[in-house]
C-alpha cells in the first residue's frame, strides 16, 4: 500500500484501459487495493469519467465492508 498520488492513479487507469460504467466497480477495487482507501479526488474523477454520480459511488463504497473512504488513521 502506498500514499495517494494522482499519477499512480492515472497509471492504474491507463493499465485498466480507462474507466467506464461497466468496469467501475473493478476500478474502485483496484484503487482501494493500491492506496488502502478510495480518495475523494478519485471519486470525483471517476464520476466525471463514467457519468455515475458521486452520490451513487459513495452510496456503494460506504455499504461494503472492505471499502474505505478515508486513509486508516488519517494523515
Amino acid at each position, binding site marked *: 500500500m502506498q500514499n495517494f498520488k494522482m499519477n499512480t492513479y492515472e497509471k492504474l487507469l491507463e493499465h485498466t484501459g480507462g474507466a467506464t*460504467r*461497466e*468496469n*467501475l*466497480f*473493478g476500478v*474502485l*477495487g483496484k484503487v*482501494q487495493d493500491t492506496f488502502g482507501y478510495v480518495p475523494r479526488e478519485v471519486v470525483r474523477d471517476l464520476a466525471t469519467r463514467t457519468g*455515475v454520480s458521486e452520490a*451513487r*459511488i459513495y*452510496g*456503494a463504497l460506504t*455499504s*461494503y*465492508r*472492505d*471499502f474505505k473512504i478515508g486513509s486508516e488513521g488519517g494523515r
Partner: protein
Amino acid sequence: MKESKVLTQRVGKYEPLDLEAYKALGGLQGLRRTLAMKPESVIEEIKKSGLTGRGGAGFPAGLKWALTAQEKQEPKYFLCNADEGELGTFKDKVLLDGDPWAVLEGILIAAYAIGAEQAYIYIKGEYEETAKLWEQIAGEAEKAGLLGKGILGSNFSVNLQVARGRGLYIAGEEFALISSLETRRAMSRLKPPYPSEEGLFGKPTVVNNVETIANVPVILAKGAEEYRKLGVEDDPGTRLFSLSGDVKKSGVYEIAMGSGTLKELIDEFGRGTTHGRAIKAVQPGGGTSAFLARGSLGCKLTSKAISEAGSGIGTAGVIVYEEDRSAVDIVKGLLQYYGAESCGRCAPCRIGSVKMREIVDNLARGNGAEADLMRLREIGNACVAGSTCGMGQAFPLPVLSALELFPEDFEEALCKVPA
C-alpha cells in the same frame, strides 16, 4: 463409497498458469466441439445433461441459458458467481485455484451459447490470492487467443473482467451480485423480472456458480449421455461436498450423486467425529440449511433424498455437530453471522434477523422465557414467507428445525427462577 473425480480430475496435476499442461491433460476439447456447433445445440446439450445449479437454488442450467438466449435485447452478459459466502462451503475455491482453465473454458462455452460478448467473474473478497491468479489467467488467455476477438480462429469474441467482492455475504445472491457490478449497494431485488430478462445494466444476463460452470466443458467434451452415466436419473453428475465441523478430516470430496449416504460421507471421508462422540446434527447444505438429526443420516446423497429427510442439499456444505453441543449455541453462532449480513431490503429479514439474534443471545445467557420460543418461531416463519431472496427465506430454517428437533435444549436454556 469412493470419490468420482470428474471436475477435480486435474486439480493439483498442473501449475495453474500453465495452459499447455491443461491442454495436455485433455483441456479445451469441450470448447473446440462447442465452436463447431450452433449455440442452440450447445444449450440443447446442457438441457439433455440435466445439469442443475450448484450454488444453492438448483435451477436447471440449460433452461436458464435458453431463457436468456431467446431475449432479443443486446448486449448480453455472462456472470460467473465466485462469491462463495455460504457458511461451511469452500468447494469453488478448489476449482478456481486448482483447475482455473476448466472454469474459464466453461465461461467461454456459456458466453458462446447465450451470445454474450462480455463476461465477468466475481471472486469473493477474502480469496485475494485467487483473484490475483485470475487476473493473470485473463492475461494469459488473451495472449493465447482464448479471450478477445476471434477465439481459436472462430468468429466468436468475448472479454472477461475479473472483479473482487468487498466483504459482503449477500453479494453472492444473484441480483445483489448484479447490483454490485453496477456499482450499487449489494441488494436483492423483486423478481420478476429475472436476470434473464433484465439483469446487469438492464440487459439479459446469466449468473452461474463456479461449480456449475465447471461441469459445462465436461458435458460438451463427453456428450450429455456419457455425462449422465454418473449420478442418478433426476440428479445427474457429481457434486463437490465441503465437509467441515466436528469431523477428523474436513475437506472437499467429489462424489457421484446417490452413490452413498450422508453417514458414509462423514465416516469414510471425514473419518468420524473429532472426539469420537455421537453426531447430534448435520447441516447438509451450508449454514442456511435445516438440521438433520442423527436418525436421518442414512439418507442418500441426492437433492431429493435430502429434501425428503427435511433439509436441502443447497451448496453441499456439510457441517457436522457432535452430541455435546447445545442447539442454542449452534443457532446463536449462525444468527451472529446472518444477523449482520442482511442487505436490508426486506423488513422481515432486516429486522427479523436482528431480533432472532437478540432472543437467542438472551436464551444463551439463561434469561429466556417460554414466550421467546414462540416468538422465535413466529419471526422465523415471517422471514421465510416475506423475503424476496434466498437468504431471508433460508437463514431461519436451521433455527426453526432446531426448535423442532431439539426442544429440550431450548427448554433447558429457559430461565428457571420465577420472576
